[in-house]
């Protein structure tokens, strides 16, 4: 894969963005790619929790500080490759999870949002030209808000994660027309938590669903991931790949990853 920024976005919350961003990054790095994973969800930071075991030193520079022009992106990124015995590199950029930091990122001026957008666009040069990463993944906040819009607009392709919930589907449809089309952004749909894992479904059923959804969204469906009870119940302060590397959820993401490489 050559220098691609992938944003993971959704219309409503809780569709599985963070779970997918984290495990996609780990899957890629496991295959030998060099990946940067950034937490752009400044309202509800998650990566600090997910990678808590892999973070050895107290975090001095958060992604917030980079956005506020207090440090360089290189000072923010933490290398967690050793912890998960990956063949490639995995660098993570964390959003500061303290309430004070979250509050500090909210309700900023338009002028600041312009500066923040410029900062995020500048990440491309640093990560690819200077750090020689293969791919950068943005985990974003749901819906239309500054950090997510900036992330989506500055990315090369966006994966919109949705469930089959009708509110999710309506939300995504609106977002595609009102936002993605307006910005002419390349985007694909990933259906997540689709069927109860116990319900067997034939290839036919699956393909029918894909065709139907492709018509609804007028976008390629790059994957249909079932709802796995044990993913739901999994310990969240350690990535799935560390606990159960042969989990079918990871196989699903491998396939999604391959398709994304060719987009």
């Amino acid at each position, binding site marked *: 894969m050559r220098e691609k920024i992938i944003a993971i976005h959704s219309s409503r919350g809780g569709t599985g963005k963070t779970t997918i961003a984290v495990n996609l990054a780990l899957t890629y790095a496991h295959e030998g790619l060099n990946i940067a994973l950034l937490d752009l969800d400044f309202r509800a930071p998650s990566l600090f929790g997910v990678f808590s075991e892999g973070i050895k030193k107290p975090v001095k520079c958060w992604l917030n500080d980079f956005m506020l022009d207090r440090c360089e992106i290189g000072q923010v990124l933490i290398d967690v490759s050793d912890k998960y015995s990956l063949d490639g590199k995995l660098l993570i950029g964390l959003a500061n999870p303290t309430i004070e930091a979250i509050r500090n990122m909210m309700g900023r001026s338009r002028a600041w949002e312009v500066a923040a*957008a410029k900062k995020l666009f500048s990440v491309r040069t640093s990560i690819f030209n200077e750090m020689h990463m293969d791919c950068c993944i943005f985990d974003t906040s749901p819906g239309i808000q500054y950090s997510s819009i900036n992330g989506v607009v500055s990315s090369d392709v966006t994966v919109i994660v949705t469930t089959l919930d009708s509110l999710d589907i309506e939300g995504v449809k609106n977002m595609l027309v009102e936002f993605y089309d307006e910005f002419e952004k390349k985007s694909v749909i990933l259906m997540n938590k689709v069927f109860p894992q116990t319900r067997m479904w034939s290839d036919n059923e699956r393909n029918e669903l894909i065709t139907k959804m492709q018509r609804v969204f007028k976008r390629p469906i790059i994957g249909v991931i079932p709802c796995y009870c044990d993913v739901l119940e999994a310990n969240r302060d350690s990535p799935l790949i560390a606990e159960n590397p042969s989990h079918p959820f990871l196989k699903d993401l491998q396939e999604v990853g391959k398709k994304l490489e060719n987009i």
Partner: protein
Amino acid sequence: MDTKKLLVQLIGEVHMLNQKFDSVVEFGGKMLKTQEEFLQRTTKQKHTDETFKLEPDMVTLFSLPSALRKTVVALYKLGEATAEDLARETKRLRAVESSAANQLVRMGFLSKRREGRKVYFFIE
């Protein structure tokens, strides 16, 4: 030319005019929204025409016509660019980029500076 042919041709022209009107109205609507915001903000702060600036943040970009929005997004990506650089990025004509960028400068969203014979546009 017989009357029927003429009529068919006329109807065709009217249809085309209608379409043009529609896009003008749509464009006008978007411009109005931008201008409204602009007014709201400027009534709060006095300005002189030269120093006056608007912020092209992503939410404001929503209310711009897509032809202009594209230029701003390209400029975010390039940092600072001539109309030629912009045209390479957006795959549109240089003249299109030049006119869009200059319009954005007049609207207060972008700045430009001259260096020799080249004009560079940038987001302040």
